[in-house]
């Protein structure tokens, strides 16, 4: 945990005025001369400077001449002062730059023809621009010689995706600085000094952290190159296309490098957007493109004939869908058809899907939350309200108190995780984490409070009650607070959760005294069966501490277009305002019964739902009760599944339709802030696949009900839906806690948490070779003590048993996790971990034992 460090709050914005190349410029005090010059559009060359890192002035390339200063100054580390007169292009500066390049090239191998950075190398460019064609350093260059095991170029692989060539390194330290300052990772270092300084992996380690791909991207030379890209194509033969990451709810901005002649994407880099990502990509965002080109993409439609899925044409498939859906409609009614859709699909697909289901077919059996355990027919007012609060990612930066509740930020929202680190390292933030298990962000937290699994709303209620009891905030609803959590005092509630009452008081005081608070809740809450009491507790906390008036709060949506799905009305029972809009657009809105994913499955079992269309979702793998989901879907008369790959769900389908990925058509996505962003088409659809919107429109056409009369209308209708009133009312009800325990049996003493591995998201990323080279199989994460108690060592096979299932996984021992809890990633089809889960449990419990061979 971080030690208390007194930090200055950002001072009031004073300004200074200086002259650069004869032009006057006024900038905030504290701005560097370099940034002042750039604000005028004057390009000062740099190697070591990075806009999101602290200046070190190690490369000396940014020399400028400043009047009254005796020598050239490094502009990246010189603060702009009032009245300064700066020259960025004088003869002296040119001479200085020339000398710097000559010096940098002293030990540089100049192996440009065989170097993969060629064409996008800053050293190559700046040598071309500033240097002379000769060197006075005529002696033997220092050379790091490798044993030849990788290649003859002295390359050495230091991580699953990172290749190092120390001879080309110019010691700008950008990689080491980014790794430590921005990512908080310590698997890369700069060793030795002088001529033989080297960047290398930390002793005994690999560079494999979840942000490691950035290191190759920010390296200005060919010292660090990415394994996925190197020697496959030269950069000048590629074309770049703007895209966004389809796996993060932040909607990280990316650039895809593609070759038109081969219809292939070769890599993804950042397209810096300071409001969202600061130019950093998590490895998931960076290597997601490989999913597009995976070998086993579905290339044609399939139709089940005599029990077997056989290849078919689109016409055959669509005709069959139209016929079977019409039959069900005619014989049993439209309420016997349902639809499940993935919140990773774009707006046009989601809206079209909604219109197809509700308007064309006329059913209210529509849901996009197919991975979350759900109680049938829960109104979910608090949950919906907490999920649709306005959040601004960049507002995290200057928050002075940040609370993370029920979220493993690194795994769920890697870019928000980096923002929180930034707020700590560069801002004045005090960070509090309240989670059922310890997470990676703990090293920047002032307090990390770990409560017993399942006690989420009691823990949060205890914070509120502490604040009221200690007079930190005033409230006349103390009794209702006590009732809601079923405890008489804050300290009793805290102790029941396994928390220190003093810690809760410290956090309550910090929130009450703060100027700007950011409160973020995440997937651990969304995955809970009892979301409503937890969401109510979050809303109450917000009201007590006035968080939304002096900051922001909310439950973060999990997927790249969850927010869009909400606004476009894909929830089973959308808020009244959304329903009203849909009614006015369509002239009608079905008044049939509404069903969630879970209640649809219940109805399938009763044969009350006979036909189902699934698009992009894989409930059989990800619904938190695998057997239940599978059995339900098996009962269907007719199942249509559209996906990129053959999945556990497509196996059951009567018609399988190949879906195009986000890179194969232009689509809009709404990120967790409500920001609408576009991922442009990078390549043509793979095989015979089609974009989701085209598929739903084709199905509607076959049902003789065209979704839109013209292309424009689709856009107009979606735009209308996305005009959202941001002031979402926060309900103020108290929802009683259902208690943390199930009808518990001592046989299964360990709580099981299921989530994403830091290198994976959901069920597609397993198709990316670069991501599986980091983590390629499921594991069981457990504490050293728990492992010792069962005589389990790192890598041992462990049997995990729940009342309904059994899985064997290798052990991974982690200091981060408590003794009464284990973590398992859900991303690997080979390890069906959802088969351990029971739909009706509050906390999943398991027992573990070592597999003895």
């Amino acid at each position: 945990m971080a030690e208390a460090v007194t930090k200055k709050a950002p001072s009031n914005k004073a300004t200074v005025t200086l002259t650069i190349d004869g032009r006057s410029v006024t900038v905030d005090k504290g701005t560097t001369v370099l940034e002042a010059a750039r604000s005028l559009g004057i390009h000062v060359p740099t190697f070591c400077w990075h806009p999101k890192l602290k200046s070190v002035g190690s490369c000396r390339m940014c020399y400028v001449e400043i009047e009254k200063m005796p020598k050239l100054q490094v502009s990246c580390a010189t603060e702009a002062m009032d009245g300064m007169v700066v020259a960025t292009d004088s003869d002296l500066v040119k001479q200085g730059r020339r000398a710097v390049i000559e010096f940098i090239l002293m030990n540089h191998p100049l192996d440009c023809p065989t170097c993969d950075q060629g064409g996008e190398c800053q050293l190559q460019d700046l040598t071309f621009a500033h240097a002379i064609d000769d060197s006075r350093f005529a002696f033997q260059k220092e050379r790091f010689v490798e044993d030849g095991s990788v290649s003859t170029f002295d390359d050495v692989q230091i991580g699953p995706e990172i290749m190092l060539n120390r001879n080309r390194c110019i010691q700008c330290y950008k990689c080491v600085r980014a790794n430590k300052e921005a990512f908080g990772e310590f698997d890369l270092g700069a060793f030795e000094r002088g001529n033989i300084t080297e960047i290398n992996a930390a002793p005994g380690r690999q560079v494999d952290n979840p942000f490691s791909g950035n290191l190759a991207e920010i390296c200005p030379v060919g010292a660090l190159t990415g394994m996925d890209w190197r020697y496959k194509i030269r950069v000048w033969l590629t074309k770049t296309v703007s895209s966004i990451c389809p796996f993060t709810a932040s909607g990280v901005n990316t650039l895809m490098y593609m070759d038109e002649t081969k219809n292939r994407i070769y890599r993804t880099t950042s397209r810096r957007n300071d409001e969202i990502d600061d130019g950093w990509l998590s490895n998931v965002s960076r290597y997601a493109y490989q999913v597009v080109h995976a070998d086993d993409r579905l290339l044609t439609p399939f139709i089940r004939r005599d029990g077997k899925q056989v290849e078919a044409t689109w016409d055959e498939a669509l005709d069959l869908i139209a016929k079977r859906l019409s039959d069900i409609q005619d014989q049993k009614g439209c309420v016997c058809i349902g639809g499940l859709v993935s919140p990773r699909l774009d707006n046009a697909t989601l809206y079209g899907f909604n219109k197809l289901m509700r308007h064309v077919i006329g059913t209210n059996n529509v849901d996009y939350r197919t991975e979350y355990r759900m109680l049938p027919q829960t109104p979910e007012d608090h949950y919906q309200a907490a999920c649709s609060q306005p959040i601004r990612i960049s507002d995290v930066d200057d928050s002075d108190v940040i609370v993370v509740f029920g979220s493993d930020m690194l795994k769920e929202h890697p870019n928000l995780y980096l923002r929180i680190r930034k707020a700590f390292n560069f801002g004045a933030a005090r960070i509090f984490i309240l989670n059922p298990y310890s997470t990676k962000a703990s090293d920047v937290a002032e307090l990390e409070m770990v409560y017993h699994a399942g006690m989420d709303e009691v823990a949060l209620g205890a914070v509120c009650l502490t604040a009221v009891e200690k007079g930190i905030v005033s409230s006349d609803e103390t009794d209702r607070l006590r009732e809601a959590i079923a405890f008489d005092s804050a300290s009793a509630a805290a102790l029941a959760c396994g928390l220190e009452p003093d810690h809760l008081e410290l956090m309550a005081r910090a929130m009450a005294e703060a100027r700007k608070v950011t409160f973020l809740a995440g997937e651990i809450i969304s995955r809970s069966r009892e979301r409503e009491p937890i969401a109510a507790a979050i809303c109450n906390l917000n009201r007590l501490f006035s968080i939304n008036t002096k900051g922001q709060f909310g439950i973060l949506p999990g997927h790249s277009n969850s927010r869009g799905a909400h606004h476009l009305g894909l929830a089973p029972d959308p808020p009244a305002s959304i329903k009203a809009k849909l009614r006015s657009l369509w002239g009608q809105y079905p008044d049939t019964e509404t069903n969630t994913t879970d209640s649809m499955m219940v109805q399938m079992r009763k044969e009350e739902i006979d036909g189902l269309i699934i698009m992009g979702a894989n409930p059989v793998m990800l619904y938190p009760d695998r057997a239940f989901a599978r059995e339900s879907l098996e009962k269907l008369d007719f199942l249509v599944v559209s996906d990129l790959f053959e999945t556990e769900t497509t196996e059951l389908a009567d018609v399988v339709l190949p879906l195009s990925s986000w890179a194969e058509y232009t689509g809009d996505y709404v990120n967790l802030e409500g920001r609408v962003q576009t991922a442009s088409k990078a390549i043509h659809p793979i095989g015979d696949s089609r974009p989701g919107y085209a598929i739903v429109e084709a199905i509607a056409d076959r049902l003789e009900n065209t979704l839109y009369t013209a292309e424009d209308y689709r856009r107009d209708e979606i735009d209308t839906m996305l005009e959202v009133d941001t002031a979402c009312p926060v309900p103020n009800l108290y929802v009683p806690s259902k208690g943390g325990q199930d009808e518990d049996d001592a046989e299964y003493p360990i709580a099981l948490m299921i989530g994403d591995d830091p290198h994976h998201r959901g069920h597609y990323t397993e198709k990316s070779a670069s991501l599986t080279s980091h983590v390629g199989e499921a594991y069981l994460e457990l504490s050293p003590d728990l492992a010792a108690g069962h005589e389990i060592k790192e890598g041992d096979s462990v049997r995990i048993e729940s009342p309904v299932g059994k899985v064997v996984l290798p052990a991974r021992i982690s200091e981060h996790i408590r003794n009464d809890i284990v973590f398992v990633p859900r991303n690997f089809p080979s390890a069906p971990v959802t088969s351990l889960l029971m739909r009706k449990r509050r906390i999943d419990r398991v027992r573990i034992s070592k597999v003895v061979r």
Partner: protein
Amino acid sequence: MLAEESIALIKEKAAKYPERKSAILPALTVAYRQVGHLNDELYSEISEIIRVPAVEIAEAATFYTMFPKHPVGKYLIQVCHNISCALLGADSLIGYLEEKLEIKKGETTSDNLFTLVTVECLGSCCTAPMMQINQDYYENLTRERVDEILEELRTRA
């Protein structure tokens, strides 16, 4: 492996600094004095004690040529090869030492008496060329002076 006393001493020194990183060099010094050189294992041990990532300890240790990273002989000869010493013949002095000790730079004599390394500036430019042997400086060196010093050290051993 660090001895109990070394661990206690590192903890005592680390307690003096408000920034944990500041304890890296004092901790390395304690480890070096006990073991005679430094290695990756010691970096991770120190990392555990002062709670600083091991890589930052390794970075500091490798930056300072004064800490040997491999087992060394009884006398560690560290010859300065920076500018002032170089101008006054450090290179030929290093060559002479190699010839005399029959080892290359970075090696140890077979009797385990002498290890020869070159180091960055030791801050004694006014008496260049110079070298440090264990804790002592030997300055204004000539070949004759080197002969004397080596002879003296051999006798003392």
